[in-house]
């Protein structure tokens, strides 16, 4: 299994396509940082709205490394599924397209093992991608923009909130958020692999995965009450943004945030369970389907 995984990782590492993802993340993050360095104030103005009528806020302090990372993740985590799909969606179908699947499956390795190894390889790729993202979005931002308290702007139902997390209470939240994001993106990987089983070329599953993610995300964010209640809970994309839950700090009765707290841990835990459930089910279907599949490519 280990040597098979090594081979799989070796194959991923030797393909130019792999590095598109890393380059894309680096480019997007750097563009973001440049834009905010140049004119972060207008974004702050947009988020603060009329709060500035009542309060004096040091916006340059508010635009710090921690805040930047949140903004970048907020945007990037919509796009990163595409990058994960780019690799995972290619896992089986790419080999089918290249013709190597034939050769691979006539080797004394079970198909279940092959799927699992490809899944683990995609998972590792996702983790490495997230670490790469953490380096640029968090560490570089911290270096460029400095460290200070973090403001979270949140729409909660019909209310909007501004939460402040003191700077000594932020880092562990990012570690938790990245771990959560790893699980969320692994759902995408599992889905892309599942699609990949049924296709003979890699474009199909990549596009299909991306389309599903985009479609579900749009529906998740429609803000139509009837959909919010009846459809949204059943879309896995609703849970992809659950990492933000780690930044929804709990407040006491007086409205003071409680250091080290999370407002709704059960909701995050449930989301995690739902995501992991998705991974298991999709991977299970992928294994079953792949074992039954006649290789005609």
């Amino acid at each position, binding site marked *: 299994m280990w040597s098979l995984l090594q081979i799989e990782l070796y194959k991923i590492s030797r393909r130019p396509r792999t590095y598109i993802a890393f380059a894309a993340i680096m480019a997007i993050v750097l563009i973001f940082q440049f834009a905010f360095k140049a004119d972060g104030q207008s974004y702050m103005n947009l988020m603060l709205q009329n709060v500035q009528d009542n309060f004096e806020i040091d916006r340059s302090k508010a635009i710090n490394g921690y805040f930047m990372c949140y903004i970048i993740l907020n945007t990037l985590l919509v796009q990163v599924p595409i990058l994960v799909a780019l690799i995972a969606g290619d896992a089986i179908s790419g080999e089918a397209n290249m013709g190597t699947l034939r050769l691979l499956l006539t080797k004394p*390795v079970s198909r279940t093992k092959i799927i699992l190894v490809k899944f683990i390889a995609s998972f590792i790729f996702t983790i490495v991608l997230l670490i790469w993202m953490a380096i640029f979005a968090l560490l570089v931002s911290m270096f460029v923009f400095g460290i200070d308290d973090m403001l979270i702007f949140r729409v909660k139902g019909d209310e909007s909130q501004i939460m402040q997390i003191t700077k000594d209470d932020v880092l562990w939240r990012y570690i938790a958020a990245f771990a959560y994001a790893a699980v969320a993106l692994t759902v995408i990987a599992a889905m892309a692999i599942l699609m990949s089983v049924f296709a003979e070329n890699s474009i199909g599953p990549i596009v299909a995965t991306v389309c599903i993610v985009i479609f579900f995300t749009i529906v998740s964010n429609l803000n139509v009450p009837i959909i919010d209640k009846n459809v949204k809970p059943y879309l896995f994309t609703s849970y992809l943004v659950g990492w933000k839950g780690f930044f929804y700090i709990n407040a006491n009765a007086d409205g003071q945030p409680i250091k080290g707290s999370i407002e709704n841990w059960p909701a995050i835990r449930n989301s995690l369970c739902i995501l992991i459930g998705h991974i298991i089910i999709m991977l299970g279907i992928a294994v079953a389907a792949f074992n039954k599949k006649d290789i005609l490519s």
Partner: protein
Amino acid sequence: MNPIVEVKNLSKSYKEVDAVRNLSFSVNSGDVYGFLGQNGAGKSTTIRMLMTLIAPTEGTINIFGKTLHNHRNEILSRIGAVIEKPDVYKYLSAYDNLKLFAKISGVKPTRQMLMQQLEMVGLDQRWNSKVSTFSQGMKQRLGIAIALVHNPALIILDEPTNGLDPQGIADIRNLILNLSKLHGKTIIVSSHLLSEIELIANRMIIIHKGEKIVEGDVQELLDPSKNIVQIETTNNEAAKQIIALSNFTEEVKQSHQHLHMQMNKNRVPDLIKYLSDKNVAIISVQSKHSLEDYFLNLTKSN
């Protein structure tokens, strides 16, 4: 002799098509076994079933005396195969591909061993070139090197000469003969060209539309006594009855203009005289002594 491959009543049907129907055959140890059929005859489907790429609808496959279904990995570790195109990872070098597949096949490859393998197929000079720069023939040879890297007892080559130039075809042919004679490997070679099989195989099967037409010794099938004679007469109906009552052949088949029969070609003059005596005039007589015609004929008449 112990059969290495024993296939019984193998069938594969897709929604509407029966790709393989009730196919049985066996390959003995040391055989170069020719698998002959036109494109779409079911050769590939059968070979893919042997390699577990396709699950049979019915029937059993035993290889090395064990059922393939239950001992898949054990059996596959002793088989090397090139199925259709020899596709490998184009973005890797020949050496890296070979190393990678050696590992997957459960072999701990050494550099010396891999280079030896590449030398055998004549790729040692290009060992570090990316496969994307290779010609079809080079890819085919690399495919064979990969099939052989784990020293399998059974080698299955599906249309190994497809897309090769005459020199390439000759190289592959020599390689197969070497593997058989010098290394004692059992080899299954599929082809749609009888001339190919004729040169390398000792046993063969001909399949058509998923069914076995004939299986046997190549020498035997090439026996002049088993030649096909095709005649056209002024009255085929009468001729057929006359021949059937004679001892020239066991069976006469009739297609729209011709009669076909299996008989020793030395007796053709006697047959002509015999029919003339019975007032059946001969328009044409053709004796086909090559297996190719035999193959074409059988497949056509079916």
